[in-house]
Structure formats: C-alpha cells, structure tokens
C-alpha cells in the first residue's frame, strides 16, 4: 500500500473574477522512502497540490471540490481537525520556498524547533531542547549549542533553510513535502541543501515530495517525476524515462527549451503562446492551444492520464495513437 495516495484532487479558488481551477483532477501515489518530483511552471498547480494535502488552503476563497488524499488509511482532506493535527507536523512535514518569511522573527530558533515536539510528543522541555540540538547538528550548523538561541535574522539564507529543515524533520516524519526549498538560494548553497536532504532521507527512510521548476534538481534527486501544466498532470514516469524518452509534447518542449541541454548558440526551441488561463473551463487538453501536434480531438475532449509503459503514464491522445512521429502541425501564432 502506498504511503500517500491522492485521487482526483480538485482545488478551486472562488474569486470575484471567476473560478480559478488551480488543481483540476490530480491523482498520484507516493511509496514509502521514495522521492517524487513535481515539476511545472508557475501557475501549474504544483504548490497548491501540496498545500491542499497539508490543509493550508485558505478557505474561502479556496475550496477543495473533490478528491481524497489517503495517508496511511486516513483521508487528510476529509478527516476531523484533531485527526489531521495528529498527522500534520508529525508524520507529514513541509518546508517552504522562502526561509526569510517562514520562520517567526520574534521567537528564538530554539523555541520554534521544539514547538512540534512539545505539541506532538509527551516530552519535557529539557529533552526537547536536547533533541533540537541534535537536529541542528544533523543539518550541519556549526556551533549549534550557541546558535540554537539565536533569532532567525542572525542566520544567513542557507542557514535559515537548514533551520527550517531541522524543524520539519525533528518529529521524524514519514513524508516530507518540500516546496521549492532551494529556489531562493544561490547555487553553491543549493548544492549543500540538496546534499543534506538526500543524506537525511537515507538516514530517516522518509518519502519526499519535491516541488521545483528546475529540471536539473529533479535529475539528481527524484525517483519519480510528474510534470504538471494548467492544474493537471501531463506526464509521470521514472526520472530516467522522463529525461530519456519523454512522450508528452509539453515535456518534450520543456526539455528542448533549456539552454543546458542544447548546443551553444543554437536557437532555443520555444513553446509558443502563454500559460493557460485557469479561470476558464478548459474542455480539452490544457496544453492544446500551445501544442504543435494538437488536433480537433485535443480541443474537445479532456485526455486521461493513462499508462504507456509500466510506471510511465501520459495524457496525450495523439502520442498514444502513435501520431507524433508525423511532425508538428502548423504552429499557432506566437502573439497576444
């Protein structure tokens, strides 16, 4: 049985300007100890998916319209608040993109670190502090005995992200959700943090959902990758398969537009047009208006995410019918 199984999750935001379908029918599973990467551009619904699982969607305007997220037999989306609290922050933790704003500036790091322990475990403050100190050392903060009493502003960005990680992992969670944890950091610091997450995951045997827009990070870290676009999953496969044999035109286009994968100076492939407007109902494939392979069937009927090879699924009717080798149809205009 998978550790987390999300089925048909739909999270909509009801605003004055209409209904934004941020997550529109997403299903996936995470096994124990596995790393799942969620990749997508801004507005693709990758963060909202995580926030929905963690119960962090502000309601209103947000509303979880349908779906379930079964974590070890408990539906995180429909269970009682008390049951959710006993899981969130203890068995499922989250780290956020911006370490500058996700720590409380008024509290010493020590108090923030022991808070989850005091809430979730019957433990004395002294023992909790000892655990916190141990965790600070585990995430590689030198001179931890002294610096545990610092305030967040006394740490640099990379160090703050380490504190965030220590705080998330102090209860030894079974699942860690990391929402772009390295996007705000410099590459040399990013390398440190990725190493740290990799090492701690091995030691604690936890599963990780890693949200990012950087395909390079995914390549080094994730077992499975799912590509999101317009609130839907376009393709999901093992990391190697996603890079070596992408099936969906969006995944292919994404790869061809990264400078790192192209010979120098060659004109980059561009996906024409703009990301979809999720405030309007999209009856067909969300990518169809920008897709060079789109046919009438793509615009009329929503394609389902179906298995192509074991462990490799995609949502493209034309790829499934083997019609993509014919080459792209006429490309839509790159304007407006």
């Amino acid at each position, binding site marked *: 049985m998978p550790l987390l199984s999300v089925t048909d999750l739909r999270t909509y935001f009801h605003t004055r300007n209409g209904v934004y379908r941020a997550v529109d029918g997403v299903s996936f599973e995470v096994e124990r100890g596995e790393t799942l990467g969620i990749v997508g*551009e*801004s507005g693709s619904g990758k963060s909202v998916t995580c926030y929905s699982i963690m119960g962090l969607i502000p309601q209103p305007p947000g509303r979880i319209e349908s779906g379930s997220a079964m974590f070890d037999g408990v539906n995180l989306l429909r269970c009682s608040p008390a049951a959710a609290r006993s899981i969130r922050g203890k068995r499922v933790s989250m780290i956020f993109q911006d370490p500058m704003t996700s720590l409380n500036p008024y509290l010493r790091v020590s108090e923030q670190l022991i808070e989850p322990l005091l809430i979730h475990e019957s433990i004395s403050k002294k023992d909790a502090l000892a655990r916190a100190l141990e965790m600070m050392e585990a995430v590689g903060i030198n001179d931890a005995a002294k610096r545990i009493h610092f305030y967040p502003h006394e740490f*640099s*960005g*990379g*160090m703050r992200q380490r504190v965030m990680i220590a705080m998330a992992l102090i209860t030894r969670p079974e699942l860690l959700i990391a929402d772009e944890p390295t996007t705000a950091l*410099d*590459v*040399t*610091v*990013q*390398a*440190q943090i*990725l*190493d740290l997450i990799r090492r701690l995951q091995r030691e604690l045997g936890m599963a990780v959902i890693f949200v990012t*827009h*950087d*395909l*390079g*990070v*995914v*390549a*080094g870290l994730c077992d499975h990758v799912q590509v999101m676009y317009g609130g839907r999953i376009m393709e999901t496969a093992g*990391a*190697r398969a996603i*890079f*070596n044999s992408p099936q969906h035109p969006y995944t292919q*286009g*994404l*790869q061809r*537009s*990264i*400078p*790192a*994968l*192209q010979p*120098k*100076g060659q*004109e*980059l*492939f*561009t*996906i024409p047009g*703009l*990301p979809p407007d999720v405030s309007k109902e999209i009856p067909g494939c969300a990518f169809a208006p920008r897709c060079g392979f789109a046919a009438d069937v793509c615009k009329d009927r929503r394609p389902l995410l179906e298995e192509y090879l074991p462990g490799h699924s995609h949502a493209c009717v034309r790829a499934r019918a083997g019609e993509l080798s014919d080459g792209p149809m006429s490309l839509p205009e*790159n*304007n*407006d």
Partner: protein
Amino acid sequence: MTENILELRDVKTHFPIHTGFLVKKHTGSVRAVDGVTLSVRRGEVLGLVGESGCGKSTLARTILQLVPTTGGMVVLNGRNLGEASRAEMQACRRDLQMIFQDPYASLNPRMTVHAALAEPLLVHGICSRAEVQGQVDELMRLVGLAPRLARKYPHEFSGGQRQRIAIARALALRPKVIVADEPVSALDVSIQAQILNLLSQLCREMNLTLIFIAHDLSVVRHISDRVAVMYLGKIVELGPALDVIDHPRHPYTKALVSAIPVPNPDIERTRQRIVLAGDPPSPINPPSGCAFHPRCPYAVDRCRSETPHLVAAGPAREASCIRLSEIS
C-alpha cells in the same frame, strides 16, 4: 580588429555604513565592487556571473553611473563617464541602456506602453511628435509584439511580454551598449527561451554590445561570447564562455560549475561534485589575501596573506589564483 567600446579601469564602488541615531558615525564600508578592470569589445556579448552579493548588479549600476563611483574609471567610446557633465552624460545615456530583472517593477503602471516607448524618443529629440507613432510601431514589431497592443497598460501583459516591452524601451534610442541585469531569471523556462532567442537575434542584427548579468551559468554559456566570474566585488576568472564554463581554472569557478545540477539523471547521479562549505563572506570585512580562501579546497597559508591578481591562464583567458599552475 575589433575595438573596445567600454572599458572599466580599476572600478571601485563602496557604500559607506553609518551608525548612530543623532550623531552619525562613519564606521566602515561595503565594498560592493572592489577593483574591476575589464574591456568590452564592440558587438560582443559579455556574461557576468556570480552569487548574490558578489557585486554584479552594483557593477551594472556603476557602468550606467546610477551609483557614484568610489574609484577608477568607466570609459565609454573613449569618454570617461565619471568626469562627464550633466549634458554630456545625457548624450552618453543614448548609447548606454539597461534592462532590469523584474519586468513587473520596471515599467510605470500608469503609462501605456505607447507612452513608455515614446518618452525616451521625445526626451532625446530622436523624432518629432508626428513620427513617434511609426517609431513605436516599429519597436513593438522588433520585439515580436503586435503594434496595436501599445495602447494597453503594463498590467495587461504577461511577464514575458513585459520583458519584451522593457527590451523595446531599451532599444528605443538605438543604443550601442545594453546592460541586462538578470533579464530572464524571473521568467519560466519556456518564456525564458523566447527572451534569450530575442536578445541574441537583436544583438546579431543591430550589432549591439550586451553585458548579460545572470546567476544561471547555463543561460550565460548559451548566450555569451566571453564570461567574467565575480566573487566578492572582484573578477576571479575571465575568458571565452565555453572554455571558462566547460574547463574552469579558478577554484571558485570550478565549484560554481560543479554546483549546477545537470538535467540528465545519468550524468547527474555519477558526476563528481565539489560542495563548498559555508556562505560567501561579507563584503564589509572581506577575508585577507584571496577573498575565497576560507571556502577554497586548495587554500594554503600563502593564500591568506598574498592578494592574487588576474594573470594569463590560457588563450584569451585570465584567472586570479596564486596556485593556478599547481592545481590544474
């Protein structure tokens, strides 16, 4: 033979730090740019890379004289910008334009795109009011936007389109040099590719000189002819983009290149990584000798006392490390 259009000679930009509430005391300075010497050839694309706080944005602002220079000279087309009068400076600004990182903040929300593009044309007297419409239309087409969109306001455009407008505005005066400060880092991958293609196409067609600042080495490698790597206000390595990024000589460039994840699982999982310890030091109180020595895996005692200078490190390449010959 190509000539140098822009020259920086030992440029320094320090920001004073004042403490005290009523009586301000000068207690030190942030050495954001600390002795940069660099020549930029006409028509070349120079990439400037480094981590946050290394002074690359301050260097950009110094080149445009948007911040006062503490020392050294910025020479554009043979003219020292530091000594130019207001009127001379305004004439120089026609040749020197900037594109900023955040297309949401760099356009005036209360001006239509037409007004934003027409303003520099009128201020500099490039064309009469009657000709403005035609010029604006041409600029819009140049950056791949439909001219009729010029009646709209910036908020009606997406991030990528706004960056196109910012580029159009920088091109309005037909400048010779454009300084682009992280022009694609706020954009998504698919949009980033569009802007990169546009920039390199414009450089080719208009024989522009582009100083391209970024922290993403793969983007810089793609677009630049030469690349300069900065660390703590100084250039530590300089040379042809492919050579520097594929075969770095300076230990910092080596670490920087190795820190970038490769989007290929087969390579990424097997390659050797150099993970630097610690964070970049503070430019208020830089380490003695080589500023990189506290994080450098090759550092010896000599690095603590001896200040390295840029020395030749191969064809058309320079690097500033005293152990260059020993470590390669």
